[in-house]
């Protein structure tokens, strides 16, 4: 199943939650923010929201900037 993560089509198993996806990438959940289909996904929902075909996911974190 393809979902769009950070602008790229990405293969994800059906039933994967946002949390599972993030942890699967080796990312500490506390360091990122997730936008799910153009809306903020609050952290407490990550464990329950299951990714579906063509979902749009933005996973972002802070970097240096001016």
């Amino acid at each position, binding site marked *: 199943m393809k979902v769009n993560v*950070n*602008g790229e089509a990405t293969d994800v198993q059906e039933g994967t939650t946002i949390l599972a996806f993030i942890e699967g*990438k*080796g*990312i500490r959940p506390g*360091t*990122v*923010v*997730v*936008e799910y289909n*153009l809306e*903020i996904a*609050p*952290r407490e929902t990550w464990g329950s929201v299951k990714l579906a075909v063509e979902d749009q996911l*933005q*996973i*972002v*974190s*802070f*970097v*240096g*900037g*001016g």
Partner: protein
Amino acid sequence: MKNQLNDKLIIGGCEIKSRLLLGTGKFSSDKLIPEVVKASGAHVVTVALRRVDFDARRENIVSFIPKECILMPNTSGARNAQEAVRIARMAKASGCGNWIKIEVIADNRYLLPDNLETIKATEILAAEGFIVLPYMSPDLSVAKKLLEAGAAAIMPLGSPIGSNRGIKTKELIKILIEEIAAPIIVDAGIGRPSEAAEAMEMGAAAVLVNTAVATAADPVAMGRAFGLAVEAGRIAFLAGPGAVREQAEASSPLTGFLHEK
């Protein structure tokens, strides 16, 4: 020096302890940041938001910023109001607070802001409870609209981002300082402490500096230099500088000396 005692900068209800705001981009190593922040005395520190790179992870910038700082994420990367709003919401969702520097840029060469989209984004985000500090191309009429839209301060550019060219828009910024009833923070282009001091002497409420510190050979020392210069400029503004004259006026008494009989 009485004027100084009550000289407070309040933005979004917070007392800001330094009139030097610091950006965190372009440092050769993020590990410099804690020491630079400390040396500069900055209280408000900007960060950006970017998509996580799953392959080349780097440490979270936030961990390098002293806890007592106010974090001000910017919306860099946004090309219109809607993108700025999305980025601002993501920033807030991180739990780092509700400050946001709006930066909407369509021009890739000079990185000049889109004032109209900036007004739109300011309106939406201020209504959502953000403390909004819009980066803008200096323009009195736009500044007024930003204020009506709910901006907490106005941040006109001195010259293009990262150019270190100094404040080339003084004429317009002076007018903003005079006419706008909100803090004017000179953002972008300041390349030398003397320029930061001059902005403060003109009456700017604060300056935001990044490139000039980050690209100095010694960023910690340069951070300190900017901190001192901003303080010097502010004190001078309050101290009431003397008049500028066309001609000379002797510092030493001119009357009665050797050649006078």
